[in-house]
């Protein structure tokens, strides 16, 4: 009989399981939200679900964002390389999407109305300065309207207050 490994150092991701479900938006309407708030000429990926879950803003503040912060700090402690590696801004934005998806699965909800966005970081936001480079943030359609989240700090703002909203290049939903 094989003995279990002496030590394991797996990476894990946890997500809150108390996501309120029931407020949904059709894919067509979700696209229209992008078309309404984003500048013209932004690529939006296909939306492969018929309906998407509109996320409770109250739940985001009380449950999800603290959990996101918890996970980000746990990853931070692992000293994951950031330069040209999976632990870059895109990787962490995907972790945010994954956590929202896990929460939605646990609540038997529709696919969460969230996306990752490639943006040119020309103005500071969420703790990251104006790098003038491409950056990746999360988009979440809440019941208070669309939000942008700097996933690595948990900072968020309403889309209309996002300082780089006119520098968005690409939106990935699926």
């Amino acid at each position, binding site marked *: 009989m094989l003995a279990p490994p002496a030590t394991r150092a797996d990476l894990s991701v946890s997500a809150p399981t*108390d996501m309120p479900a029931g*407020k949904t938006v059709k894919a067509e309407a979700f696209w*229209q939200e992008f078309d309404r708030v984003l500048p*013209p*000429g932004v690529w939006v990926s*296909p939306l492969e679900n018929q309906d998407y879950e509109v996320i409770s803003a109250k739940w985001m503040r009380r449950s999800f964002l*603290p959990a996101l912060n918890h996970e980000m700090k746990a990853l931070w402690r692992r000293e994951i390389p950031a330069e040209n590696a999976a632990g870059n*801004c895109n990787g962490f934005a995907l972790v945010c999407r994954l956590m929202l998806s896990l929460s939605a699965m646990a609540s038997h909800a529709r696919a969460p109305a969230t996306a990752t966005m490639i943006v040119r970081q020309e103005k500071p936001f969420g703790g990251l300065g104006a790098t003038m480079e491409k950056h990746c943030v999360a988009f979440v359609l809440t019941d208070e309207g669309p939000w942008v989240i700097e996933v690595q700090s948990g900072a968020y703002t309403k889309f209309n207050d996002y300082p780089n909203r006119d520098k968005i290049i690409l939106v990935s939903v699926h």
Partner: protein
Amino acid sequence: MKNIIALLAGLAIAGTAFAQVDPTRPMVTGRGNVEVRPARVIVTNQTKTNPGETLVLEKFQVTGSLLRSPTKTSHDAPLTPAPASRKPSPAKATTTSAPGGRVAS
């Protein structure tokens, strides 16, 4: 509550009004669906190229990761942002206990 109702009603109306957009195909804001040839790479910074000219796919450069030590790069900020619209303080958020349900590992 009014905001919630207004938002959902607005989204429902918008969905009805723009039903001609096929959301399962690529879209560009301001234009709706766009034609994409099969197997063609979508390049976000695409510019017009001459026939036969090789299209170079721009690499997404990593920008400052907030998970790195602020001492390593000059443009990175520490993990204590406080945007004006953020209601819960970072300190409060970080002291929140771990999420209740471990749903993946």
